[in-house]
């Protein structure tokens, strides 16, 4: 079992996990009420992966997310107000209303717009890692992907090059067992679609319980250290589970009930970490309740703020297509 970190870090991780959970549940209700436009691909149930992987990154390390980006963004430091504004298509959104639910991010905190093409961010993360290497920096790039992305050509092409070039990049496969509605078991012949392929590229890999935030964080620390030391890429396959469907209209009719019961009740990452914090005396019930109340207040604030915030001016639609400057 992974060791409990110092109290400040443990509670910091818990607070971020709880924030992701509350954020996603709030989004879900706003969506059901018909207040929020667009579509949603939610990350609750996968909080341990986001927080465990990202907690120890520096602000100038760069993280590339997927169409399910909220957890990663919150963990990397994108503000709740700017994310909520983006969800409502507002001018103060983290993408100025030009991204939406599948593209949230804030480049100033090392979270470029999330990528809604499956596998699309994998070579981009390798490119960021190549830039760090060429610039002589010890930063790392982190690419998140789902299990389905391991069947993309971009996965193969990038793993091969990242290994040959010893790039400081960490490939994180969040294996939530389903690529949209299709079980990964019927689209890949190996039990661990990312980790089992790693040997083919000469990249070290680990399979980790992705719902155990401390286990994830320890694996992340090993991969980050390898990358910073110039030893090359790592593939981490985190076994996890979505609490919700693939997207807004998915009632998960393809998931066995006993499997859902296990992940949603017995093996829920937020619940498990909360119980462990209490069991090991890291914090009291009252202290956790106080943290949770703070989180709920911050999310309520972001919703109120975003609903009142102005929409972009129509002329903004034609801005930001090109940068007018250059290295002249």
């Amino acid at each position, binding site marked *: 079992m992974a060791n409990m970190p110092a109290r400040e870090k443990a509670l910091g991780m818990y607070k971020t996990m709880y924030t992701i959970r509350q954020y996603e549940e709030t989004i879900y209700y706003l969506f059901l009420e018909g207040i929020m436009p667009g579509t949603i691909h939610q990350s609750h149930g996968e909080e341990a992966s986001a927080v465990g992987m990202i907690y120890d990154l520096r602000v100038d390390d*760069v993280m590339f997310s997927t169409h399910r980006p909220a957890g990663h963004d919150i963990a990397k430091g994108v503000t709740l107000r700017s994310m909520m504004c983006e969800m409502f298509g507002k001018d103060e959104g983290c993408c100025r209303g030009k*991204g939406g639910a599948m593209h949230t991010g804030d480049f*100033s905190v090392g979270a470029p717009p999330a990528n809604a093409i499956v596998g*699309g961010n994998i070579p981009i993360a390798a490119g960021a890692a190549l830039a760090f290497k060429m610039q002589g920096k010890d930063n790392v790039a982190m690419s998140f992907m789902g299990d389905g992305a391991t069947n993309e050509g971009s996965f193969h092409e*990038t793993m091969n090059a990242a290994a040959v070039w010893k790039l400081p990049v960490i490939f994180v496969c969040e294996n939530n067992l389903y690529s949209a509605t299709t079980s990964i078991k019927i689209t890949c012949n190996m039990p661990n679609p990312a980790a089992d392929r790693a040997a083919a590229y000469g990249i070290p890999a680990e399979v980790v319980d992705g719902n155990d935030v401390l286990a994830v964080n320890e694996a992340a620390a090993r991969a980050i250290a390898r990358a910073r030391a110039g030893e090359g890429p790592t593939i981490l396959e985190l076994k996890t589970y979505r609490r919700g469907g693939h997207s807004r209209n998915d009632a998960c009719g393809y998931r066995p009930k006993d499997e859902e019961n296990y992940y949603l009740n017995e093996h829920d990452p937020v619940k498990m970490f909360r119980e462990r914090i209490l069991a090991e005396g890291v914090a009291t019930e009252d202290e956790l309740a106080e943290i949770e109340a703070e989180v709920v207040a911050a999310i309520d604030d972001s919703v109120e703020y975003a609903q009142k915030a102005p929409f972009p001016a129509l002329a903004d639609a034609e801005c*930001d297509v090109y940068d007018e400057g250059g290295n002249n």
Partner: protein
Amino acid sequence: MAVLSIADALKAAIAEEMRRDPAVYCMGEDEDIPGGMGGAFTVTKGIGDEFGYFPPIPGQKEVAGVGRAINTPISEIMIAGVCVGSAMMGMRPVADLQYCDFLFCMMDQLVNQAAKMRYMSGGTLNIPMVMRCPSGATNRGAQHAQSPETYFAHVPGLKVVCPSTAYDAKGLMKTAIRDNNPVIFFEHKLLYGSKRKEAGAINSSGEVPEEDYTIPFGKAAIRREGKDVTIVANLLMCHKAMQAAEQLEKEGISCEVIDPRTLLPFDYETVVESVRKTGKLMIVHEDNYNCGWGAQVASYFAENEIFLLDAPIVRLAALDTPVPFSPVLENYVIPSTEKIADAARKLARL
């Protein structure tokens, strides 16, 4: 002033920019393997000797850090994605595709990623990258023959460049490398002037200054002034249009030949000013007819400047077929100097 081929002019531009800015690097399949070709058309041959190789090659030039001539696996998606990611983090990649037909292997990274990343970020990041794309039909069959500029001219967020002279090749390449946006840079295989002889190659060598200069995007060049017919043509077709114009001159028909130099942005103004004088517009490209970029130019005139026209617009393009191998068939499919001259003659007499 030195007389350079387009291949050498491009090499000079890339090397000068790599000297000027340590963020500039070049990459591609066979980019610069000692004993190899330097891409497929010699442009980057010898670059590693000055800037170092990555991965390092035993016995070859070593540099501190990472060499800036990067020889890649044959992985087009990876190449384009690495350009996007490294550009985002402050580098200025210049990638070589060997054949522009391979663009289609990396479409997601160019169209969904490079072109949209700045916009989706609310203007907070840039993707300064150059994708070098050798184009044109050269007796190599349908998968090494296309002129796909139009696909990319359709994409907001990209810029599309197509030089036809050595002077322009150097100046436009420098502008492309310094630009903060993704640039798709077409280089016609029959215009390189590399030592390897190609059937139908045209000598495009010309005087190229050694001092630093750039050519702005969105400024067409009037290659030849005339008063009867305006011919807009890019890459190899610009040279063929010039040959046709010379023939027609002897017949007393005066053609103005305009090389757009960049398709996105496109310099409509120069074309409009020319047609104001000639009243007749003809567009020639090696891209095939259906929805080729000439259709956009024609539609611009139909919408905005129709009263300048004294005759219907003429569009001459490759036939709507894949490019066939047999030299006889290829010559038939691609617009020839004779076809251009015939069409311009007919238009002049209307």
